[in-house]
């Protein structure tokens, strides 16, 4: 069946709550209102206020409570109204949740999820992609799906995982992307990338909304005879090193594309992996396309300038192809 990205996530959580009584949701305005983006719409009627809990506006308490409940064998799914607000709970995530299994052997099977990303003129506090804050935190799994099939399969995998998973939903994709999702139960494994488009000339390594940007660029470049391979990472921690190396060995030229700021971004880490494991396979410099090193500005022309665009990918791909 054809589902929006948003509906796929909603179905995924619904099915897990239906299947497993230990799964419950907590967050701001997720109950009767159904969440700011309606991911939990209808949940409170079906699962009751005990399992769909509206919380105070207190992100540290939400994460702390989710963690505490997970210690009793529950599988909480905590919503951030916008992932920008995950910063309010940073200490709880970084110092409490992420370190718990390594330090004292307690598993923390919880999911922290919410909308992230730009292209919707949300301004500096409703457009961020803060995944790198957590990629640098050993003990967390960080998931950033690009298509409805993966969004549903990965949210279900995250809920079933025995570790803390941070699930970034790209809000630009929520209702703009529709795709085929099977009716039967399935999960997408965490930590595995997928080839979103096979190609032979150069590889775009990317994830989340940028997968669609790369796909659009591939259409344009295809007409010029430049054949892009697009690797959708799906999970940014742990990274699928094997898939990264494989695509480099195949095309020998790499563009790394991400939405968040360039410095200290995902591209640096991927470039280092390629340097370590596939240096001899490179036929050109590793190219980064990323957001500017600033906050994400509000005004549409400024936001457009800040964010990576199809034309950036087209330009850089042409340049690299000619190298």
């Amino acid at each position, binding site marked *: 069946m054809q589902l929006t990205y948003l509906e796929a996530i909603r179905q995924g959580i619904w099915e897990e709550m239906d299947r497993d*009584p230990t799964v419950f949701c907590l967050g701001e305005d997720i109950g009767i209102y159904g969440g700011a983006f309606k991911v939990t719409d209808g949940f409170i009627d079906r699962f009751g206020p005990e399992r769909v809990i509206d919380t105070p506006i207190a992100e540290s308490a939400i994460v702390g*409570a989710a963690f*505490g409940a997970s210690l009793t064998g529950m599988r909480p799914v905590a919503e951030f109204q916008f992932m920008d607000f995950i910063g309010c709970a940073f200490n709880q995530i970084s110092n409490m949740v992420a370190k718990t299994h*390594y330090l004292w052997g307690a598993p923390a099977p919880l999911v922290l999820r919410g909308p992230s990303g730009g292209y919707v003129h949300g301004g500096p506090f409703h457009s961020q992609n803060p995944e790198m804050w957590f990629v640098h935190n050993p003990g967390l799994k960080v998931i950033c799906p690009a298509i409805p099939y993966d969004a549903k399969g990965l949210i279900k995998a995250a809920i079933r995982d*025995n570790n803390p998973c941070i699930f970034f939903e790209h809000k630009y994709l929520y209702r703009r992307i529709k795709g085929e999702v099977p009716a039967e139960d399935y999960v997408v494994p965490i930590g595995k990338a997928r080839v979103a488009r096979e190609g032979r000339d150069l590889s775009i390594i990317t994830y989340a909304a940028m997968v669609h940007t790369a796909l659009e660029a591939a259409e344009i470049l295809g007409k010029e005879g430049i054949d892009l391979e697009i690797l959708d990472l799906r999970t940014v921690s742990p990274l699928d090193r094997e898939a990264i190396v494989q695509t480099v060995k195949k095309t020998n030229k790499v563009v790394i594309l991400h939405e968040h700021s360039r410095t200290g971004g995902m591209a640096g880490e991927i470039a280092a992996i390629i340097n370590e494991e596939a240096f001899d396979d490179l036929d050109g410099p590793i190219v980064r396309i990323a957001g500017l090193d600033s906050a994400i500005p509000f005004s549409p022309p400024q936001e457009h300038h800040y964010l990576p665009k199809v034309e950036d990918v087209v330009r850089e791909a042409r340049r690299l192809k000619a190298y």
Partner: protein
Amino acid sequence: MGNNKKKSKASSNGNRPRNGARASKAHVAADAFVRPSAERSSTNQNNSNSDLRTYSIPDYRLEHPDFTVRQHVEKDRQGQERVRYEVEGDLDAPVPPIRDSKYLNKQQAIEIYRYMLLNRKMEIALENLYKQGKVVGGVYFGLGQEACSCASAYALDKDDWFAPMIRNQGSLLVRGFGASDTMMQYMAKAGSPTKGRDGTSHFGDIEKRNMVSPISMLGDLIPVMAGVALGARLQGRNLAVMTYIGDGGQSTGVTYEGINFAAVQNLGLVLFVESNLWAYSTPSEMQYRCKDLAERAIGYGIPGVIVDGTDACQVYDAAHEAVERAHRGEGPTLIEAKMMRMKGHAIHDAASYVPKAMFDFWKRRDPIARFENYLVKEKKWLTPKENQDLPTEVERIIEEEREIAVNSPMPTPESAEGGVFCEDGCHEIKPKYGMPKVKKGTGGFKETEAAVHLK
């Protein structure tokens, strides 16, 4: 543990009235807690004040020490100006008696006393291990706070949960950890509960002793413990979840978030606010402005109570009542325990910033000396002979535990690796108190506006 009670039914999450909107009088009576419900003052002469609301905070103490610490500029011998802390107030007040417990019997009181001795002697052993160069890093002490650590944890049932702070090493002993566990943590040994990965009382046990590991950041345990109670309630159990915060730690924002969450959700948090007067080197006068931290409870809409933290009976009674409330599904309680940290922040800190008169005042209120006097002289529950034998037995235990700890090897360097994730079946995740019974509404899955595609 100190008491055995019947299981109570879990209350459901849902809407509860605010304070005063529904006065649960029966509970107040049963509790000996006065809910901080608002009362209108009708006797006030001043018309403009006729709408004044009054709140009450029960205070179990038999004395009310009244002094203030402030910064004061003084000249040293060379005539240089120096800023020092000085204390003003009545520091010669006589030591009050121990308040008879409403709940503790002879055997329980002696058992708490024994844990307090274990607590203190373990810390003396730790100090010696430090002096012998066997400790990695520093040592933290709960000197002067043994009654608070031990009598509080003693009020918990086996299934209840707790999370200590750095000075609650006595709570760990009450909950069944060996002194060697804490000693090995300090010595960073392979045999320590964290296998060398963390020190001090930073360890936990979700299987048997229901302890959440503290982290160094203050206040973060409060919402976590609320979450433990939430998880248990979803599984049909109203548990008490006890943790501690200092007068310094309560300044953090997450403290507010955590207590408020527990209050809104009516979760069985038993929060001991240990007002030990010094947060590292900062006096409580520079942490908060209200008179007593128990007053904070009024703002949260939960019961608050003040006890003398050096009186094991008062600590136990308040903890017991709060635990009972939690088991009845009546929500959180804030207990402020007043005492003083009788050493520096950690072993490196001589606490020279503390005016000596304050040490003298609180030294006369040593929780162990006071409780000993109470048990031997006032209650005659301990004979002089038993009172002589008890420390000997405790010292023997501590010596055995010290041997175990010292003989544990250091971890191998490679043991730093692995265990970041729970994988390959290292844990089976299952609800600890049974599968939640779920009610499902009639609403089946239907596509909502989430399915609307914007193309």
